[in-house]
């Protein structure tokens, strides 16, 4: 292997990419504007949830409850009648419809239990669950205040104080911004390497490579380093300028350590890109194949939903995916300030997965490169 060959071929990759202005613009877009909008648009856990209230009681107490729902958690409640409730929920206008029955205040004042009905649109999973918890505690709070005639001061015998560590305000932007970068890193690295290979095949330039005194190993390594370096560069830029600068998300851990982790992850994903490039025969095929690979990688990696709540079988399989380890190490380093002592198992796993994917892809690349021209 000649290092200079690898270097030159890699520079060639970067040059051919730079010539594609739209592509460069898209790469920049996905690491700047796209990260920013998806981090800021993603609402807090419960943000402006649409709620409608059917107030049949029309008592001071029910008016109190109506007034207790206000932004940012809820949109100002719409007062509707029972006939409209179903139609509004069918049309997706409200996630919650609260029905306060006639005689609600009377029953409570008489010391009887009173019942309110809360209808939840369960097709909106995330909002449905957090929201109904909030509504429950808001109603209980208002009722207690009303019954005692003043805002409750006596605390329960055993009080509960919850502390959210590492993200005390449970700020979604902190979480969303970094996860968006992680997803872009994976997507871009697979697309760039795989598509670069397909492009050479479709244009017939693989033939140029074959007549040059370079080995398949050198070709593959050059593609990997060039694309990995590019993606690493833009992702670190995005982390520093967009996430830390513009979005003011505090980054706890060491950036160099994160960069090493990203590089290891890129080693695995770019090898995967080459592998997909050797399987697909044309760009449309590659596009569909990429969907098949990318969607499970991203959805099951733990960047969208917590790993612990997946079936154990899925958790086990996903240990073989580089994303899973990358998400774990990124969260540990960036949010919790973890050092190498904590994330070394993820580093080892990434090295193992990367080497396996690399050698597998190389074997396939060697075998198929002759037929590509």
């Amino acid at each position, binding site marked *: 292997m000649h290092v200079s060959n690898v270097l030159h071929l890699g520079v060639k990759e970067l040059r051919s990419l730079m010539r594609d202005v739209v592509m460069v613009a898209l790469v920049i877009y996905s690491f700047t504007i796209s990260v920013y909008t998806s981090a800021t648009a993603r609402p807090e856990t419960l943000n402006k949830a649409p709620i409608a209230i059917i107030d049949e009681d029309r008592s001071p107490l029910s008016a109190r409850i109506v007034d207790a729902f206000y932004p940012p958690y809820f949109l100002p409640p719409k007062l509707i009648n029972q006939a409209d409730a179903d139609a509004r929920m069918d049309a997706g206008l409200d996630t919650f419809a609260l029905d306060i029955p006639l005689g609600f205040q009377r029953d409570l004042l008489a010391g009887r239990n009173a019942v309110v009905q809360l*209808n939840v649109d*369960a097709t909106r999973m995330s909002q449905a*669950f957090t929201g109904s918890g909030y509504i429950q505690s808001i109603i209980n709070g208002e009722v207690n205040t009303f019954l005692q005639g003043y805002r409750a001061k006596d605390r329960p015998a055993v009080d509960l104080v919850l502390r959210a560590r590492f993200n005390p305000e*449970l700020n979604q932007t*902190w979480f969303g911004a970094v996860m968006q970068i992680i997803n872009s890193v994976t997507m871009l690295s697979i697309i760039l390497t795989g598509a670069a290979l*397909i492009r050479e095949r479709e244009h017939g330039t693989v033939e140029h490579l074959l007549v040059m005194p370079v080995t398949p190993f050198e070709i593959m390594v050059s593609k990997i380093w060039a694309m990995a370096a590019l993606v690493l560069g833009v992702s670190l830029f995005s982390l520093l300028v967009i996430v830390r600068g513009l979005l003011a998300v505090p980054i706890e851990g060491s950036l160099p350590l994160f960069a090493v982790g990203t590089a290891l992850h890129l080693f695995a994903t770019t090898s995967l890109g080459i592998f997909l490039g050797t399987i697909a025969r044309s*760009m449309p095929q*590659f596009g569909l194949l990429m969907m098949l690979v990318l969607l499970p990688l991203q959805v099951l990696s733990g960047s969208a939903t917590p790993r612990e709540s997946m079936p154990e079988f899925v958790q086990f399989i996903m240990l073989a995916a580089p994303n899973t380890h990358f998400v774990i190490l990124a969260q540990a380093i960036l949010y919790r300030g973890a050092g190498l002592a904590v994330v070394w198992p993820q580093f080892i796993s990434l090295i193992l997965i990367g080497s396996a994917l690399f050698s597998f892809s190389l074997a396939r690349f060697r075998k198929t490169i002759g037929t590509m021209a």
Partner: protein
Amino acid sequence: MPSRAETVRGYVQGMHAHWLAAQARQVFGSAVTGQVVIETRFRYNPDVKSLVAMVPAVIPILLMMIPSILTALSVVREKELGSIVNLYVTPTTRLEFLLGKQISYIVLAMINFVLLSVLAVFVFRVPLKGGFLTLAAAALLYVIATTAMGLVISTFTRSQIAALFGTAILTLVPAMQFSGFIDPVSSLEGVGRVIGEIYPTTHFLTIARGTFSKALNFSDLHTSFLPLLIAVPVLIALSAALLKKQEK
């Protein structure tokens, strides 16, 4: 992960309150009276199964990505490999060229849609409570819109890599994050909200959830058809206007 923390917090508070109530019952003997009971009804999905909630929402996402990527590639491929010269040298108009491209992918996407629906109903056992015809009509409009989005993207990209990547980020991110897939559009803020209001996925998602889970028909959902009907000619006109009849 804030959502996980919120869920944990809810459970801990619930357990704490429950334990306090149990202790109070043990010590004071009787249940506390004069309390408000909240009867929560999870509508449309009373067992709160995630499959029932997710499957109708994933269909719009897939019908957004795959048709748009394939359509965009079909045009850009010709540009990259040079066969677009056929458009330049023959009297074919831009609209004819684009519609010809589009129709085959609309047919393909509709086959896709039928397969997805069959899979949803028979394999995943998600009940289709509303009208299938309503859903199919909406799907047809929707895939016309999504293939047209592919055409729009194809007009300003010159390489297949850019078309593939561009379509992926320009469709995947809005479809997953701004279209009510996770949070309803009315809860979003800023640019995401604006995109969500006009994006076709939002409206098809409402229709898909309406027909699958809420047993609705055309008469209940016609307001969601309108934005799709508007999106189609706008997108096609845009792509026809942006496509160059001659190479510069």
